[in-house]
C-alpha cells in the first residue's frame, strides 16, 4: 500500500513541478513530510543537500532518495517512474506536434521570437553558476576582493580549452573537479 501511495505522490510531483528543479522541492516536501509523514523535516533537508551535491535533476534525486529510504530498490523504481510519467506523456505529445508543424513558416516566425530568450536564460544560468564558483555568493552579495583565485584560473583555462582546442565538455567538468582538489591540497586548503 505504501508503495502505491509513494507512486501516486511522485506522479503529482512530476505533474505540478513547472519551471525547473527548485519548483519541485515544496511539492515533494508537502507529499512526503506533510501528507504521508514518510520523513521528518530534518531528513528532508538532508535530502535537499545531497540532491544538490549530486548530478541529475532534483526531483529524480529526491524520488530515488525517498524511495530508497522508505522501501528499498522497489521504492526507487516506483518513485522515479511515477515522477517521469507526466513528463513522458506531455513531452511526447508536444514533440509530435512540434515536428509535425515546425517547418510551417508561421510557426517559424513565432519560434524565432522565443529563441533569443532561451539564449538569455542559458546565459543567466551560466552567470549564476559562475558567481557561485568565483565568489560563493549570489550577484547581490558579491564582494569583489573575495574572488577565489583557483576557481577564476580554472574558469579561464577551461574556457580557452573549450574554444581553442575543442576539448569535450564532460572532460572539462570532471577535469576541473580533479584539478580543484589537487590545487586546494597543494595550497594547504585541505587538511
Amino acid at each position, binding site marked *: 500500500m505504501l508503495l502505491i501511495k509513494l507512486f501516486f505522490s511522485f506522479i503529482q510531483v512530476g505533474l505540478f513541478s513547472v519551471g525547473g528543479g527548485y519548483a519541485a522541492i515544496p511539492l515533494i516536501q508537502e507529499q512526503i513530510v506533510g501528507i504521508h509523514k514518510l520523513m521528518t523535516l530534518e531528513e528532508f533537508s538532508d535530502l535537499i543537500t545531497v540532491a544538490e551535491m549530486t548530478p541529475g535533476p532534483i526531483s529524480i534525486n529526491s524520488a530515488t532518495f525517498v524511495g530508497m529510504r522508505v522501501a528499498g530498490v522497489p521504492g526507487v523504481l516506483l518513485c522515479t517512474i511515477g515522477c517521469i510519467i507526466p513528463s513522458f506523456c506531455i513531452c511526447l505529445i508536444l514533440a509530435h506536434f512540434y515536428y509535425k508543424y515546425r517547418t510551417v513558416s508561421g510557426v517559424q516566425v513565432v519560434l524565432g521570437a522565443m529563441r533569443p530568450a532561451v539564449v538569455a536564460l542559458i546565459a543567466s544560468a*551560466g552567470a549564476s553558476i559562475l558567481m557561485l564558483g568565483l565568489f560563493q555568493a549570489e550577484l547581490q552579495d558579491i564582494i569583489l576582493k573575495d574572488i577565489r583565485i583557483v576557481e577564476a584560473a580554472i574558469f579561464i583555462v577551461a574556457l580557452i580549452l573549450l574554444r581553442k582546442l575543442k576539448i569535450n565538455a564532460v572532460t572539462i567538468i570532471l577535469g576541473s573537479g580533479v584539478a580543484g582538489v589537487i590545487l586546494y591540497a597543494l595550497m594547504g586548503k585541505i587538511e
Partner: protein
Amino acid sequence: MKKEHNKLWILFKSMFLLSACTFGGGFVIVSLMKKKYVEELKWLEEDEMLDVTAITQSVPGPLPVNASVIIGYRMFGVLGSLTAILGTILPPMMIISIISLFYEQFRTNIYIAAALQVMRAGVAAVIFDVVINLAGNVLKTRRSLYIIMMFTAFAATYLFEISAMLIILACLGIGLIDLAVTLKKGKGTVK
C-alpha cells in the same frame, strides 16, 4: 537495422554520460546536449535545440527528462524516447541509491566539497562557451527585435529574477504579434 541499433546505443550512452555530469540544474544539461547533439553528432539543428529548450522549460517535470523525451522521439520515435529517458535517469538513480545509505559521510567529506566548488567554474566555462556561439548567431540575424529581446530577457531573468516560464510566455506573445505584423505586411502570406 544494425546501424539503427548502433545509433540507439549512442543515444543511450551519450544521455547517460551527460546526465552523470550535470551538476547544477537544467540549463547545464541543455548546454551539454547542444554541444553533443548539435556540434558533435550533428543530429539536431541549433534552432531545434533552442525550440526544444523553450518547450521543456514551459511544461511540468524535470528539464533533462523532458529534453531527452523530445530528442529521443526526434531520432527514433517512442523507442528513442524511452531509451533517452533510461540513459538520463539511471545515473542519478544509481548515485543517490548508493549515497542514501551513507549520506552523512558524503555530505561532510572535504574532498567532495572542494571538487564540487571548483567544478562550478568548469560548468560555467562550458555554459559560456555555448552561450558565446548562440548569442553570436542571434547577433548575426541583425534583427534588432531579436537582439533587444535577448538582452532584455537576460536582464529580466538574471537581475530581476523573473521566472523562466514567464519570459518564454512573454516571448511567445511577442512572436505572435510579430507573426500578425508579418502577415499584414505580406498581405496574408508568410515567406
